[in-house]
């Protein structure tokens, strides 16, 4: 009788183990987790995935662009300070629409040439016009460089919250399911929570590279803008000296006449 009881106990124990094993063989692969999720969580996950794709596209694009821009600046500076005449440089550059320093140079030179071709003689007016033109093209260049960079900043700060939102919604629904089934077994709770946490994981996955690269690209833009500003100031100084020289020469001519 005692043996029978013992046997009964061990059999019940074995059955319990079997039951828990059966319960734990739920498919918890990534795809299954995604498919199990509710519509809101799915939308959040898809949105985060798209944000990740787009921010990586921006990262690749901008990195390439800044590298190119830096090389252009180096080349242009080399040519500019090589003692080549500005007229020649202008002629060679104005045919193709250049970026960066070239764009600044071409804009300023165009204004300069037009003013002299039309015979405008006020040196102060010319100086302000050239400065204005330089400022405008500088702003245009900066805008071109910084374009879409703000998306990275947005993703970097908002994606974790979006992921967290997905997680909270997922956990909420999974707890509602628990309340419905009246079972607090961890095997019942775990898949729902894992699925909800996937949303947070995706959010972080999108946000971390976005934040890192936003900071890096932002400093790159700042450096390039500094160089452009420096060039603009320098070029403006050169042109202003030229204006002074020319007006000085004219007044001397007049005085000689």
């Amino acid at each position, binding site marked *: 009788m005692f043996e029978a009881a013992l046997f009964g106990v061990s059999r019940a124990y074995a059955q319990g*183990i079997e039951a828990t094993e059966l319960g734990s063989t739920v498919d918890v*692969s990534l795809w299954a987790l995604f498919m199990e999720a509710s519509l809101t969580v799915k939308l959040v996950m898809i949105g985060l995935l798209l944000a990740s794709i787009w*921010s990586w596209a921006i990262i690749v694009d901008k990195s390439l662009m800044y590298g190119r821009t830096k090389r252009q600046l180096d080349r242009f500076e080399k040519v500019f300070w090589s003692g080549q005449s500005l007229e020649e440089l202008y002629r060679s550059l104005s045919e193709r629409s250049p970026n960066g320093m070239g764009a600044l140079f071409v804009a300023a030179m165009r204004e300069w040439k037009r003013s002299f071709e039309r015979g405008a003689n006020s040196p102060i007016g010319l100086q302000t016009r050239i400065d204005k033109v330089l400022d405008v093209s500088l702003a245009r260049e900066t805008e071109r460089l910084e374009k879409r960079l703000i998306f990275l900043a947005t993703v970097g700060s908002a994606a974790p919250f979006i992921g967290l939102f997905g997680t909270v919604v997922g956990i909420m629904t999974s707890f509602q399911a628990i309340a419905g089934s009246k079972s607090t077994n961890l095997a019942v709770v775990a898949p729902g929570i894992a699925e909800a946490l996937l949303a947070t994981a995706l959010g972080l996955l999108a946000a971390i590279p976005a934040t890192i690269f936003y900071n890096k690209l932002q400093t790159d833009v700042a450096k390039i803008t500094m160089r452009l500003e420096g060039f603009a100031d320098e070029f403006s100084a050169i042109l202003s000296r030229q204006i002074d020289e020319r007006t000085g020469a004219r007044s001397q001519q007049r005085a000689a006449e």
Partner: protein
Amino acid sequence: MKLGFTLSSAAHVVILTWGLVSLTSPEALKVQDVEALPVDIVPIEEITKTVKGAEEAEIAEKSAPTPTKRETPKPEAQNVGDKEIDSKPVENAERESPVPVEKAEAPPKAEAPAPKPEPKPEPVKEEAKTPVETTEVAAAPQPKADITPETPADSPEQPLEGEQFAKLPDTVPVPSVKPTPPKPTVAKTNERKKVEELIRESGGQTNGTEKQEDVAVKNKVNKAESAGGGAKTSTQTAALGARRGNAEKLSQSEMDALIAAITQCSTGIAGRRISEDLRIKVIMRLDRNGNVIDAKAGPTGGTAEERARFPRDILRYVKRCAPYDFLPKDKYETWAEVVPTFYPAQMFQ
């Protein structure tokens, strides 16, 4: 921008497919081998239990009964002793049985030792018909055992415990009278009923439960000395302890439940100050169903008027509340007579 977008999309697709392929279900945790920590709920009475030991030995760190003489241990035995058959010691047994053990040789009925109202052995008859093979307490009755204590049957073979053993005659006593065969007619149901009534009336003081009844009967059947004894071997040195281990007792929570139940039945007393030190001890005797057989109340402290009044009130409540059927039936002997103490100052305010 096109280049960046295509590069990024391609990379995401590659990583995601790799993730879907390689990050499949992680291996399920195997938790079968973890040993669960057993948690027991221990009633407070267990802490206050007495430990089995020898009453006349010196205090030792660990209580132990008088060492037994038998060499081969009986693994199933629970009570320490040199007996062949395991049985609990009788609670109220005297130190030495009033009748010398040699009485096994003395057949006359008149000298039968009956120092207390022990139940007659008749109920055993029924058990004797279905002998069980194990050596546990319940198995004690052997079919060949004689029922009446006068018969000299097998007592000589059973060694006695302790120092008494040495004093006993070594020779096997020869019965002077031919043992009479057991009379089956004794086991009449009406007589059995009488025994049960006797048991019930005697309350928990002596042999209240079937358990004790059985033990008492088996002691007679076994022809053991009236002090009883077990068959479990003990090799430890004798140390101070109670004669009987595992004494049963009404637990604190059950006593509290009883007092609470009685307090619930009380009707409050409005606007009267009751002395703090007034204490009323009630001696209640209960039957198996929790009905009050009789109850007495003894007051201490308080004013004379209170001492006259509250015992009466409380006795009324005690009777009104009956039956106390929440008390555990299998521990009847612990609450056959209970002595709860009431503090009217707390009870009525």
